[in-house]
């Protein structure tokens, strides 16, 4: 029995490995998108796949997002499992009609006869100094659409596990990759990757008793940092990583907030109509008598994503989180 040691790996590597393993395990898995083949993607997430599996399994498509997703629908109708890369968050918008009108509805429309096991990888979020259209947090569009799963990893291990689970899912999954964390590192054993988690389970990343920070994706590291800093102020914060927005792990959220009595939701997406709205609405409904303070949100402002030189003012940071935690009526 050999044990392979865990080594530092980036989220990018873990995602790459997830696709590679999925392609090796199942010939139905096809990767497609702009520049995913020869170049290995602009973020190199698909690096080496075309070489290893051939251009028919990892295909540079023409430059047309609706065409990419639309042909992926047809491929899935025939029994393949397309993994589609959208080059950036805002460049997924041309594929919106195919996504909403077909991908999300085909199973329901055919009463289960024709599911579409498509994974749509969307690098999302800001903090990378990207020019306009390269930093959107577009998850609210997807979470508002029944029939889609919306999954987003925040750690190297989850990047692998959740992507494998998404590709394995018989339902369409919008897999949102926090591009800011592509180069984040963690010890991880690519030879024996941990068991693939199911989709739909949140995870307590830090236990605490005073209040719960509920977050996902790019904001997880920020929340963990805030929770550390909060200790000095005497607040013991729990940090919950949702990992998937749909299905939504209401049980985990409710359990945590009932325990702590206070909740702050943190995400980069605009606040108004963002995922935090749904979460807050559910918490107040399900934890009404347990709440010591209103559920608060720390989110991107309700503005188009600002220019890189100003993005730090837009993004939820440690200070803004702490300021918000301070407003949780601790005097009660």
């Amino acid at each position, binding site marked *: 029995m050999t044990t392979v040691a865990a080594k530092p790996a980036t989220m990018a590597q873990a995602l790459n490995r997830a696709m590679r393993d999925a392609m090796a395990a199942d010939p139905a898995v*096809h990767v497609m998108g702009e520049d995913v083949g020869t170049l290995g993607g602009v973020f190199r997430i698909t690096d080496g796949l075309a070489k290893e599996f051939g251009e*028919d399994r990892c295909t540079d*498509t*023409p430059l*047309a997002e*609706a*065409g990419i*997703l*639309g*042909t*992926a*629908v*047809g*491929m*899935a*109708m*025939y*029994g*393949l499992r*397309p993994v589609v890369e959208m080059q950036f968050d805002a460049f997924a918008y*041309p594929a919106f*009609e*195919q996504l909403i*009108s*077909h991908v999300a509805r*085909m*199973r*329901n*429309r*055919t*009463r*289960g*006869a*024709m*599911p579409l096991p498509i994974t749509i990888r969307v690098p999302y979020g800001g903090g990378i100094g990207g020019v306009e259209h390269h930093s959107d947090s577009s998850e609210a569009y997807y979470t508002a659409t*029944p*029939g889609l*799963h919306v999954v987003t990893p925040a750690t190297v291990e989850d990047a692998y596990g959740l992507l494998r689970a998404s590709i394995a*899912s*018989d*339902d369409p999954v919008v897999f949102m990759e926090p591009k800011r964390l592509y180069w984040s590192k963690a010890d991880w054993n690519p030879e024996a990757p941990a068991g693939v988690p199911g989709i*739909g389970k949140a995870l307590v990343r830090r236990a605490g008793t005073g209040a719960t920070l509920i977050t996902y994706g790019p904001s997880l590291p920020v929340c963990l940092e805030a929770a550390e800093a909060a200790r000095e102020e005497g607040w013991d914060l729990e940090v919950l990583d949702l990992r998937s927005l*749909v*299905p*939504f792990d*209401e*049980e985990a959220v409710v359990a945590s907030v009932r325990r702590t009595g206070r909740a702050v939701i943190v995400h980069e997406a605009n606040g108004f109509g963002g995922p935090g709205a749904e979460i807050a609405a559910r918490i107040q409904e399900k934890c009404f008598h347990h709440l010591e303070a209103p559920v608060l949100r720390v989110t991107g402002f309700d503005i188009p994503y600002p220019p890189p030189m100003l993005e730090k003012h837009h993004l939820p940071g440690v200070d803004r989180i702490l300021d918000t935690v301070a407003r949780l009526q601790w005097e009660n």
Partner: protein
Amino acid sequence: MTVQELPGAGASHRSTPPPAWRPRTDAAPLLPDPEPYRVLGTPAAEELDADLMRRFHAELVRGRRYNAQATALTRQGRLAVYPSTVGQEACEIAAALVLQEQDWLFPSYRDTLAAVARGLDPVQALTLLRGDWHTGYDPREHRIAPLSTPLATQLPHAVGLAHAARLRGDDVVALAMVGDGGTSEGDFHEALNFAAVWKAPVVFLVQNNGFAISVPLSKQTAAPTLAHKAVGYGMPGRLVDGNDVAAVHEVLSEAVRRARSGGGPTLVEAVTYRIEAHTNADDATRYRGDAEVEAWKAHDPVALLERELTARGILDEQAVQAAKDAAEEMAADLRERMNADPVLNPMDIFAHVYAEQTGRLREQADMLRAELDAEEQS
């Protein structure tokens, strides 16, 4: 349109072109003939396959009767809406009959007749238009994609499916149907481009029936013909008289053959006419005159074939009567079966949103069940 004088036209002094540049293919064979291809009423009709033509005739008569019956069902409140293909039966029938069993048909919302001609039970084909569940059949069993309501969105699906089959080494051709209006959508463009780049075994059949609801073709495009769009994708474009079932079938056969043998996609424009209103809910008198409709009625696809076959002795009165009888039988059966109220289970609205119901759907299903129970008790 006058194209003004162009620089360099006919100039003979060109030096070497820039490096690496070459046209990817010769444009000439991709261009459609300037007139729609026809068989009926031409010498080419001499070579018609009598058995096939009798089959076409029976199908056209049945198709016409199907259209009439479906429209009647809207008046009886048995169909919510029906987009008729009266006048377009030749296209619908040819599209269905040109395919082999393993091939796939991608119909638009108007093309229930093609699905029926391919063998689908009309009651199953009509669930969407009845207000019942969208797709009343298993698409994989019949190799008929769900009727597509959002225009042109089915075209990339056809390309993807054909491409997937080709990658798997399967002998499958996809035939996708779309209207003249649908050619203006971005999805039309993207689908044709992907198909040509991938050399996917797919045939695009545009039924140019003159209108997109009220909008005539002249407001839809300035192209010489819709078939001319093909050259911009590097695939052949073909123009055919869409009311001539023999011609449509021949052009589609050729295209299917090319697709099947690895020759890639074809764009076929069938010139036809929507004799009835857009749907039963539409009032066509608002946007077109009787004269135009009458002129096209004189070019009726059923009459065209019947005249030719009768003149050539391929069809006798008996066969005509038999076709009519079969059509009446189909109509009576359809009428009767559509007269029964379908029984739907409200709880099914939660059953197929996901493979596995999410927590919130379970909650909502519980709520509806409780409401239904309460209703039942009261």
